[in-house]
């Protein structure tokens, strides 16, 4: 069941588009904002609200990389692995994060504190290497800066 808040927020998007389906990506993001990820049950509930087939909505949910179809940790680390960051030391940053977190890319720490994901170019190539911690961009990364950023996220 969608919560009353989720339903209200989704319905508030209806006037912005001429069809209900156009709201579906925003709707999945709303669910994710409330629950951290999008479980199967929510895909079915959102599909029903938007008059869509659940399978069609799942095809959309799995297409876009910002929709998480599996649970993630309290904080999501997105390390840029595109070309400018690669030149500027992406591999060193990845190795450092792997060592500090004890997990590889695509994994979540046992205490559910961090999920570590690769990400394509974050559009800050003049400040490479970069990563995002949740919604925030962190640029000109060094091992020391990464340690400080991890420290702040409980």
């Amino acid at each position: 069941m969608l919560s009353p808040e989720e339903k209200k927020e989704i319905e508030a998007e209806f006037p912005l588009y001429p069809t209900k389906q156009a709201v579906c990506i925003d709707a999945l993001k709303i669910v994710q904002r409330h629950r951290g990820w999008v479980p199967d049950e929510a895909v079915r509930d959102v599909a029903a609200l938007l008059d869509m087939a659940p399978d069609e909505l799942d095809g959309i949910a799995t297409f876009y990389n910002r929709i998480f179809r599996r649970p993630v940790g309290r904080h999501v680390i997105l390390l840029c692995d595109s070309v400018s960051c690669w030149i500027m030391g992406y591999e060193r940053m990845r190795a450092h994060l792997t060592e500090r977190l004890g997990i590889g890319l695509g994994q979540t720490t046992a205490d559910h504190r961090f999920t570590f994901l690769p990400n394509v170019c974050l559009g800050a190539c003049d400040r490479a290497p970069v990563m995002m911690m949740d919604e925030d961009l962190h640029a000109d990364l060094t091992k020391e800066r990464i340690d400080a950023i991890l420290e702040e996220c409980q």
Partner: protein
Amino acid sequence: MPTMEKPLTRNIRSDGAALERAAYERAGGYEGLRKALRMTPEAVLDTVRRSGLRGRGGAGFPTGVKWSLVPRGADAPHPKYLVANADEMEPGAFKDRFLLEKDPHQLIEGMIIAAYAIEADVAYIFLRWAYREAKEALSRAIAEAAEHHCLGKDILGSGYSLEMIVHVSAGRYICGEETALLNALEGKRANPRSKPPYPQMVGLWGKPTVVNNVETLCNIPHILKNGPDWFKGLSHTNDSGTKLYGASGKVKRPGLWELPMGTTAREILEEHAGGMRDGLRFRAAIPGGASTEFITEAHLDVRMDFDEIRKAGSRLGTGTMIVLDDRTCPVGLLWNVERFFAQESCGWCTPCWSGLSWVEQILGAMERGEGEEGDLEILREQTKFMAPGNTFCALAPGAMEPLASGLNYFHGDFERHIREKRCPYSPPL
């Protein structure tokens, strides 16, 4: 010497905060819109056509021509749509982020004028999810613009009405392709659509739609305010205007600079980016984001505009260059670039999803020291299989541009990887 004009970045605050409406108007903002609203939509379109403005998203299509294909007059289908493509995701590109975060009203004014010229009813900004600061700046600026009657019903008493909505995307590089973007906005998987029909005729929800890049739209207020001849005069070449050029990689001062269109790669690299870091030599550059051909030392004096750089066998693309130094492995770099394209293929057409993953695997094997005789032939063949016309959209042909030119310029490096069964750039065992 006359002061170089920088219309796009002139008002950007040194503290990095977004320019607010009052400051924007004090600096001459919304004058272009006021002027446009006193003209007919046809006259606005004609002004932009005469300015010679070409699309800044990478393809360089003339903006006025793009707009002129939209049906107009009493029989035209409505609602018509204008979409700002703010889904910047080309590896190595970081120019639209700057314009979005620092001067949101400039984009909004450009969009209102563009929408007026094509008689659009609704405008969407298709914004990349990662650009949170841009989302905040745009939402605030749209509210300010509406409060001051620059958006909504009867804009500045002209009788023209426009609604503007920010749509935050959920990822995937393919959304930058304009027809894939339309599918994403409609709440579908972002597979590109077959063209024709072109979006100007059959676009969002089947209605006439124009999709323009952020930097393209940001030029519009200045063209209206100062005229097409002024805009042409900003450039060093026949391609009009200024351009946001950038440099990343191991240069002394990576960054972004607004310079006359047609500035040479050498000036960007040596004067603005400060040359290479100490101890490193320039090897090559990808001049316009990952999907453009390499240029080398021999091409540095080529003027970076849409037509001149073609003579060096490359494309202007986004104008943000990725610099390769002599200590970074070109095969490793190409592996990184092709892995990106293989991952971001939408999976719709076979030459793309199949070909790109094959290319990516071969380059990865070479870099690990597992390259084989014959690999270079396969890579060369793939650049032909994925040439323009053989795939559904421009993603795979774009992916082949750095590879095809890299196979030429770095032939010796590829051979060494295969012969020595190792990457010669990684530290010796």
